[in-house]
């Protein structure tokens, strides 16, 4: 099957105003299958947002291939990015009209996702009148209600308190299991990645270092000890959590968890 996202030899170099250059993405190869939930796990500054911006078409200056097929793109940013002068519903309408979703479908889409995230009663609230967690949930509703085939998510829950983040993660999995969108989810939180993903790619310094499939069966429970153990192994491998690169040999349970260096084995999409 044709992958939903196909990236080959992707390089991105920023040029500073003084002429100095800095290569942030170094020859990335990536295929994401339709309906796959991929997590990209990496320390801050490794190029995760830069990659998503390329995939979303926000950044068009790069070398190599970055093809995205399989429908409209939804992008959930680290911050909600709501328009503060519009109500919750106004923000949804803005997205729906921008994407030219037929007006007669709006109500059904809005009420479905608002209900799913528990925001049905907040349609007429302005962004400053709802909490940060609710604002991010609303941003999720906004991304979902335009019915994207592909959802890009950039550390969307890292600014939330743990209890809220946990609930939204569970909501997200429920929605994904219902709709089977292709999701590329960027995070620096190993537990989150292990809970959510089919496959985890570890990114460091602008390159993919390791790849693994998450063998935990679905539906998953947030407190599953398998998630905990897996994430502990990942964190240990993650250069002591300091973002220092780890020699491939030191990766844990290479066999047990299906770890493999991306250079030797790029797994085909599921």
């Amino acid at each position, binding site marked *: 099957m044709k992958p939903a996202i196909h990236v080959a030899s992707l390089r991105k170099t920023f040029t500073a105003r003084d002429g100095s250059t800095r290569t942030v993405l170094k020859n990335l190869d990536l295929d994401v299958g339709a309906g796959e939930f991929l997590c990209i796990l990496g320390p801050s500054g490794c190029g995760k947002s830069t990659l998503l911006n390329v995939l979303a078409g*926000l950044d068009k200056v790069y070398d190599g291939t970055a093809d995205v097929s399989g429908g409209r793109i939804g*992008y959930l940013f680290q911050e909600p*990015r709501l328009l503060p*002068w519009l109500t919750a519903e106004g923000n949804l309408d803005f*997205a729906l009209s*921008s994407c030219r979703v037929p007006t007669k479908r709006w109500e059904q889409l809005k009420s479905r996702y608002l209900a799913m995230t528990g925001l049905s009663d907040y349609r007429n609230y302005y962004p*400053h009148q709802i909490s940060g967690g609710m604002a991010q949930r609303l941003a999720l509703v906004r991304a979902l209600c335009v019915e994207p085939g592909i959802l890009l998510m950039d550390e969307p829950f890292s600014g939330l308190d743990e209890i809220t983040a946990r609930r939204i993660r569970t909501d997200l999995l429920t929605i994904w299991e219902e709709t089977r969108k292709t999701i590329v989810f960027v995070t620096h939180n190993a537990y989150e990645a292990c809970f959510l993903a089919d496959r985890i790619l570890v990114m460091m310094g602008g390159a993919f270092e390791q790849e693994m499939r998450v063998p935990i069966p679905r539906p998953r429970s947030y407190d599953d000890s398998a998630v905990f153990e897996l994430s502990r192994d990942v964190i240990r491998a993650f250069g002591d959590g300091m973002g220092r690169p780890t020699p491939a040999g030191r990766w844990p349970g290479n066999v047990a968890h299906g770890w493999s260096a991306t250079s030797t084995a790029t797994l085909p999409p599921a």
Partner: protein
Amino acid sequence: MLKVISLLAAVIFWGLLSLTLPPDIFPGPLETVKALWGEIAGGRVGTDLVMTMLRVVGGLVLALLLGVPVGVLMGLNRRAEAVLDVWVMIGLTVPSLCYAIMAFMWFGLNEGAAIVAIAVTAAPSITINIWEGVKNVDTKLVAMARVFEAPRSTIVRRVLMPQIYPYVMASARFGLGIIWKITVLVELIGRPNGVGFKLFYWYQLADMRQVLAWTLLFTIIMLLIELAILKPIERRIFAWRPEVAV
């Protein structure tokens, strides 16, 4: 409430202070109001007030037409910013009296020249406000709109403009503050009517009662415009903003 008390205190203070000089030179509030009432009852304020208002409004509109586009350009384009920022500073520095004299000398003693002089005086500070506003535009919201496939015109209208409105509003009010003052000055040197003309006329006759009466009239009208028109508009436009507890 505090506003009312402070106004009352000021009136009392004015009354007391005026006792130190003869009433011909420094009339108190009562005499001033009496003189003002005489003018109003005698039907002698209408024309001058209307003419001044028209010049103020005309000057403000022209100042916005000049100042807003330049400010937007400077906010968007680094090269334009580098070239124009010196000119904005120069525009701010030149005394408004110079603009008035130049306008009257070059364009003649007419309404057009008066309005040009008024607008040119206020435009630089409007430009600075808008420039600041455009530079502060949240580009993250623009990226968000682009992800939702919003066409350029929609982004300008629904994402950029609402962010710049507060600065346009602020610059209009700020500009108005400048314009009240320059209008009176322009009328004094080059117009046959208006509040400024009247002030100068009474000054030449050394009638301080009338001078203060007209000053009072002008101040009250401006305050009314501020409170009855500008504040409500602002409250309406920015209803979505959180209330700031003061």
